[in-house]
């Protein structure tokens, strides 16, 4: 089955279509999970009705393979699983496996050259591929975007992109999506943030939209159809923006976000939901972070030598009095847009899609503050509720419609970090902890833990679900779990 392209099909229509197809005797392909967090980054496998509840390294393992280190999510398309890894210090690889058996289908390696600094838990193999079933698209920091034939891994094209730079040395972890005949890719770094669309057949640029008012961030673009119009929606520093997917033109902005956005929004109908936490409070703009961590000699000002040389131009721009230092407001002026001096905090928001211009006031459906969302794990909108999970195994759920609290902060009794995002299928919600435990909840109005499953290795990548199989990319391995697997 080919992936549905219209976001409106995700939800009720999608479920109907998938179920009809599943009942059809001529159905050839199964359910797909074609990009980061599956269809439209929703985290929902609508066609799976019996994904595994209990599993471990020894239970319900359909297959497993040693992959090597990586934190990119696996994707599934037309009976194949695609994953990435580093095969040595300077080799990046994309791999394909038979989704049912784990049989290796192909592996393509790329020389990476000298790798940039990254901060754990990030890894160099961090970008989740996207596919239309024919081509697999993936980003790598030192290479750019790569297109591979999904059947044999041959390189269809490479499109070099500027190497991203991050003031705090986080490293790249941005993932493309496929929309119609385009690959759309957002890369918000601290140097040269942009949104770009490439022709998926040729790799040529269809449009490119700079995002100069953004800082480093990791939100994956999502599609939102409202009022008969489909927009590419991207969350970033201080702003959620809608773009015309055909031209890249900015259509609207909702100026209600925080400085650093690492989570991705989700879309249900014409509503966009976002939950995020950003370091510090609303008054702590970038300069506080930079003076805390980058002012090595602690003289209260930034010298050029205290920053990576890539930022020299930005430094010059900010150094208004040309004294060779960035002091006070000069620091923010160098890196943050004067119209977007936003600070930290935490938010959970529901924003209506389909606006024009500044929709901050007009399209905000509801906004919750100080409800402790995660800074990395994205929310799950499922079964009428918005589920959040954050460090410490703290969960919370809110009504999608009005934001009312369904359950306040409640412990999953599985401590530690949560980098991967929750996903769902068949009325079950899967919450992967960094400690290798995947908590399975029964979807519903209360916190109902069905199982705590230990997969024995760190989990940073969000798992995938397709055809009732759960694909878990741990730090070192790829597992496929299924009920009654031998």
């Amino acid at each position, binding site marked *: 089955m080919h992936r549905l392209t219209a976001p409106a099909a995700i939800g009720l229509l999608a479920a109907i279509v998938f179920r009809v197809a599943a009942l059809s005797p001529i159905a050839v392909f199964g359910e797909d999970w074609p990009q980061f967090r599956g269809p439209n980054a929703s985290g929902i496998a609508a066609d799976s009705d019996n994904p595994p509840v209990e599993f471990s390294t020894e239970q319900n393992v359909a297959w497993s393979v040693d992959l090597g280190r990586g934190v990119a999510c696996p994707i599934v398309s037309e009976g194949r699983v695609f994953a990435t890894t580093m095969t040595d210090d300077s080799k990046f690889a994309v791999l394909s496996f038979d989704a049912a058996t784990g049989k290796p289908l192909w592996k393509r390696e790329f020389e990476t050259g000298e790798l940039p600094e990254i901060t754990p838990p990030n890894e160099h193999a961090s970008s989740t591929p996207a596919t239309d079933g024919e081509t697999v698209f993936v980003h790598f920091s030192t290479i750019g975007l790569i297109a591979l034939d999904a059947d044999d891994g041959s390189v269809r094209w490479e499109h070099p992109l500027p190497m991203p730079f991050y003031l705090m040395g986080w490293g790249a972890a941005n993932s493309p999506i496929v929309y119609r005949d385009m690959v759309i890719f957002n890369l918000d770094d601290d140097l040269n943030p942009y949104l770009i669309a490439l022709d998926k057949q040729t790799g040529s640029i269809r449009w490119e939209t700079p995002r100069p008012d953004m800082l480093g961030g990791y939100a994956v673009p999502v599609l939102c159809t409202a009022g008969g119009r489909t927009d590419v929606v991207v969350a970033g520093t201080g702003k959620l923006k809608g773009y015309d997917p055909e031209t890249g033109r900015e259509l609207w902005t909702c100026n209600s976000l925080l400085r650093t956005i690492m989570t991705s929004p989700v879309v249900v109908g014409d509503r966009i939901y976002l939950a995020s936490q950003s370091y510090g409070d609303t008054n702590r703009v970038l300069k506080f972070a930079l003076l805390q961590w980058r002012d*090595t000699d602690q003289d209260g000002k930034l010298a050029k030598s205290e920053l990576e040389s890539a930022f020299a131009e930005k430094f010059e721009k900010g150094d208004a009095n040309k004294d060779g230092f960035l002091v006070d407001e000069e620091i923010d002026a160098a890196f943050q847009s004067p119209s977007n001096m936003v600070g930290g905090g935490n938010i959970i928001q529901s924003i209506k899609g389909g606006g024009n211009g500044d929709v901050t006031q007009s399209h905000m459906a509801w906004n919750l503050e100080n409800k402790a969302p995660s800074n990395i794990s994205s929310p799950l909108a499922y079964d009428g509720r918005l589920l959040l999970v954050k460090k410490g195994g703290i969960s919370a759920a809110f009504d999608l419609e009005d934001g009312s609290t369904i359950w306040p902060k409640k412990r999953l009794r599985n401590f*530690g970090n949560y980098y991967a995002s929750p996903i769902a299928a068949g009325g079950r919600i899967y919450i992967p902890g960094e400690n290798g435990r995947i908590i399975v909840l029964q979807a519903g109005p209360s916190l109902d833990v069905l199982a705590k499953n230990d997969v024995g290795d760190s989990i940073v990548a969000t798992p995938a679900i397709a055809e009732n199989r759960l694909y878990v990319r741990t730090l070192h391995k790829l597992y496929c779990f299924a009920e009654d697997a031998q």
Partner: protein
Amino acid sequence: MTRIPLAASPLATIAALLLVAGGTNAAERVTVVVGPQTPPIERYAAEELAGQFEKLFDDVAVAVRDSVPADAKHLVLIGSPDTNPAVREAVGADWPQLSHQGLAVQNVAGADTPTLVVGGGSPVATLWAAYELGHQLGIRYLFRGDIFPMEKRALELTGHDFVMEPELRVRTWRTVNDFAIGPESWGVDEHRAFLRQLAKMKFNRVMLSVYPWHPFVTYEFGGVQKETALLWFGNRYRVDGETVGKKVFRGAKLFENPDFAGLNTPQEMAAAGVKHLSGLIDAAHTLGMSVGISISPLEFPREFQAVLPGSKGGRGLNQLVVVPAGDQGPADETLRGLVAAKVSAYVNTYPNMDRLYLTLPEFPEWDQHAAEAIEILKEHGAPADLSVEGLVATASQRNLIASGARGEQAIRGNLVGLAFLQKLFEDKSLLRRPDGKPLGLVITAVDPALFPVLDRVVPPGAETLNFVDYTARRVVENRKLLAAVPAGDVGSQLILTLADDNVGVLPQSASQSLGELTSDLKRLGWQGFSTRYWVPAELDPSVYFLSRAAWVRDLTPRDAQTELWMTATGNRAAAERLWIAWEHLEQATNLIDEHNLGFTFPVPGLLMKHYQPTPIPDWWQEVTDLYTEYMIELYRAQGSIDGGAKPVLFYYAKRSEYVLEYLAAVKAVREAALAKEKGETEQAIEHLEVALESTYNCINTLSDIAQDQSDRGLIAVLNEYAYRPLLAEYEKLADAE
């Protein structure tokens, strides 16, 4: 040798063309020459130096030869006139007078080929000379490896003429010890790697500190065979589904020393123990270090209570030992037989060890024999005016951990122990190795009240290894005691605590106190020191300081750290931040030491001992603030550099995060106890959840950067003594609610 001007040489044109064309044969050739009959350590020195040159210099090709090749371009001659004819020919009478430990690096004046001599007064001193040259060229030696200068540079071997003699001639590294967080968890392979680094820092002795329950020796006395063969006081550390950070155990079901993995019976353990300790001795000898085994001669596994009537269970974890008590006095024949059997077992099991350290009991139980003992000591040379009463008065009034009643018991028992040893070693054969060579003897932990007469209370010829108090800060407070030792009359070494097990499992530093103490040792003419520590993690700056201060008279900790971090980071501001970081760390260490010695002692009750409804002391916040500043400075420095020390700074920084999580857990546990006391169960559960989360995070953080068996041992200990009991209490309360 005739030099051909490069420009005039036809080969020069070809060479230049090759260079322009990216030719591959442009490397500077350096020949490192050892003598044809060179000792193995000198050959090792040559190979080490060759490896270092290739990492330090651009485009060099270094070869080690046992004669001078005719076409040499740069020569490095290894050894002394006694061990290498090429050195003899090059320097002849110009070779300086060196002690056994002295080292020299000299450029040979007037040689046709640029020639550098790297040698010493002994083969191991030659090895140290090679490492000292490496240091002078910018290499910084740390526990886990070497940090080379950020940039390679052109070959330059001139300007490095120096002669060095140590200021402190005994530089002992203690290992094995007790507790899973320390080197008792390391296998021989891990030890070997550490020892190689210690050799680079010119440590010259290794002390294997072992305990009566350890599996390193077997002996029999009076029909009783030693059966006890345990590590870590017999404690075991599970790894299961509840274990936080279990990835570091790689699927094992238990945390174990790799040399003892899967072994259970005393016989299996003992066989592995002998292999383990022998391996350590061989590894140290290969690097030119001498090795001693440190035992507690007057403590025995409990099975020997049957042959030692009246003996008592000794203090300590799990009550594994018995000690002399009751009628047993300094002249007890049965006791003498048992101790002789034990000593002989060590001497015969490890025939190539170089010295035996005998440690007097910390908590003696035979103090009633002090009067008899002092008479025996006087018979063996102690001053006639020495009195039990005078010594007791001194011991009970002092400001040491062993003061008051504990001090009185300590000095009395110490007198009995010393008297016993004087009589024991009337039999000189006990201290003879199987090959007939004499074994060195070091008496450890003579009570400080006896320091003024130290030379007259230990067996003739014995050296002393002296303990004043647990932490270096406490020793500094009592530094006047050091001046009382007649260092000119008895070999005297001081135990320098780098990180104390009572202060516990948190990162510690004692650099500035070590600066004070090493200064005293040099001024007072002591032989040197022996280290004391468990987790090596943050000790790099302290050990670096000791390694340099032992050779440089007026070096301060600050000088040493600047020298270390400037090279390791290539960034003056970063080096300054790191000095500030370690100042914060030492202040935090001192604060814990002052307020609650034993705050994180790695034993059962580690965390839950704070689960009591008493007010949160103010100093907890102070120590949290200090560790926070420490962390911030580490990340500042780490973020400012590329390469060099960046990975090691990240390791330290993550460990500082662990501390903050741990301190948050301690506070939350106390808050939970206070809430529970008030009957506020819901709040108590919430505090316990915070404590669990913090404990989880602290262990998980450690697991992200665990590098060695001490790191893994710490994770095992925190799981067993912090996380599991906390989880049990939480579930008990939550389920009841």
